[in-house]
């Protein structure tokens, strides 16, 4: 029975759950002994846990954290001959491969959706998060898209407090922004780099009685709560579905191939994404 461990600091984020579940499903088929380790946001602890796994001599390790930050652990694994896989982590020479969606493409989908819907003019509120590289790149793309429209003005670039999941604080922030911009039409759209702020903004807009102004909201990830909001046909109009399960399963496949003795050549394995609107939200 092969021993495989998944180490992540981001277990509390909904996406991670799906990776892990899909990974587990494949693992069960292969009869692996899977150990899921959550370090609750602590990146150095990821290194520590990898070191522990090396001492324990597991057969493969999967991480979902920026590999450049855990080089010490990756090196220890490499020295011990244990293969390490990235599951939406980032490309790195010390990884066998990194399985992920294309973050630039996702942000381009929603930001162009917004720009098209508001016909290239008006005030936009952005919810971003720079501390987490995969989310940070989305902000970069959206900045570029909005910057390309001379009549789009970014009213505020908010970083919500995510320690509680992000919805409640985003909502409070949006409530304040709405209070500060009471004129109907003074806010045309809310672009969020992931779904939780979009949901918070939606609640704030509905609660303020301004859902009739046609403020366009987009998110990224298309988590179940977001899909429901989109399906309901309110202000929340679009999100992008990453195929989390696909990433998890593809990672497990990569592990299986390497355990079977195969060599994997591409340093990144992309799994396709999909724009979610009212039309396909309930699929």
């Amino acid at each position: 029975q092969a021993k495989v461990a998944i180490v992540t600091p981001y277990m509390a984020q909904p996406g991670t759950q799906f990776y892990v579940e899909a990974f587990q499903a494949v693992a069960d088929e292969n009869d692996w002994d899977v150990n899921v380790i959550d370090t609750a946001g602590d990146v150095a602890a990821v290194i520590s846990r990898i070191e522990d796994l090396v001492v324990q001599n597991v057969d493969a390790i999967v991480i979902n954290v920026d590999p450049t930050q855990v080089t010490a652990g990756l090196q220890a694994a490499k020295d011990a001959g244990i293969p390490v896989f990235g599951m939406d982590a980032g490309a790195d020479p010390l990884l066998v491969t990194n399985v992920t969606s294309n973050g630039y493409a996702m942000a381009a989908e929603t930001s162009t959706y917004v720009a098209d819907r508001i016909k290239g003019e008006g005030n936009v509120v952005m919810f971003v998060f720079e501390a987490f590289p995969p989310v940070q790149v989305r902000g970069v793309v959206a900045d570029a898209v909005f910057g390309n429209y001379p009549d789009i003005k970014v009213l505020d670039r908010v970083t919500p407090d995510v320690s509680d999941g992000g919805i409640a604080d985003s909502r409070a922030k949006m409530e304040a922004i709405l209070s500060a911009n009471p004129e109907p039409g003074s806010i045309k759209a809310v672009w969020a780099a992931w779904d939780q702020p979009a949901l918070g903004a939606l609640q704030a807009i509905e609660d303020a009685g301004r859902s009739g102004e046609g403020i366009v909201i987009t998110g990224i990830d298309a988590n179940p709560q977001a899909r429901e909001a989109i399906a309901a046909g309110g202000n929340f109009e679009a999100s992008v579905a990453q195929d989390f399960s696909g990433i998890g399963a593809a990672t497990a496949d990569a592990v299986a191939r390497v355990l079977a003795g195969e060599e994997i050549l591409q340093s990144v394995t992309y799994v396709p994404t999909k724009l979610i609107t009212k039309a396909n939200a309930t699929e």
Partner: protein
Amino acid sequence: MVFIRRYGTLIGFVAILVFFSVMLPATFPTARNWLNITQQTSMLMVVAAGMTVVMVMGDFDLSVGSAASLAGIVAALMMAAGQPIWAAVSIALAVGLLGGAFNGAMVSLVGILPFIATLATMTMFSGLAFVVSGGKTISGRAIPEDFGNFARGGIPLGDWGGVAVSLPNLSIIAILVILVVWILLEQTTFGRRLYAMGGNMEAAHLSGIAVKRLRLIAFSLTGLAAAAGGLMYASRVASANPVQGSGLMLNAIAAVFLGTTMSRHGEPRILATVVGVIVLGVLDNGLTQLSVDSYIRQVLVGALILVAVGAGSLGQKRR
């Protein structure tokens, strides 16, 4: 002089209010905005009110955030399993009460320092929340609409400058909880005894106060309030995840401590805690309305608290 000493902090806070009102005359000092603030702070208010109870004895409870998360998860899971809302809410509150009683037992019967005991249970409750939920966020159709609607509802107060305003349900709960804690701490022998314990545990014991039992009860109440706060949170976001209450703990302790700077001998008082919570809420609300960059806002919040509290402390020359 004596005035400054006692009210210095309060004056600092009033100065902050005046500042925001001047900077944002059209939006900040409106009934609508203030009702928003009471709603935004209602969960913290309830948890901080519970925290005040143990802090009156000079103790802490670090587990309130995890207890709130756990209560939210438990209720959500029960509702997802088709149980009626009242049953889910009752069981979740019972979980909070039991968790608090466990804290109380560790502190008073076993004799573990509150800081260690509740740090350990903080970890445990959080782990339990993950275990029972499998780490997932429970949302969407799993949560009955009525549950989410509760947080969105309120009692209409009529028109105010042309805008319909209503007193949010969450604010009403917060006010009720404050009232109950106020009666408990200020009007009953129970509260008097807690204050005596906070002033001198040994003297209280030798004066015939059943310190162990009271400590147990106090921690149970704090756990109950934490669970209530967690349920309010879950209702507000119409979902539950195993970490959503974690921000509440430090803020609740901060609010109580901010309050202590306004009381005679630095003891916690429920009404002072209320001011503390509102100050935290107002700073967030006002600075966001001013479109202050969120990072700079953090720095400002810290600095403003130091200035407000420091103004009060500087008046208090030791000699």
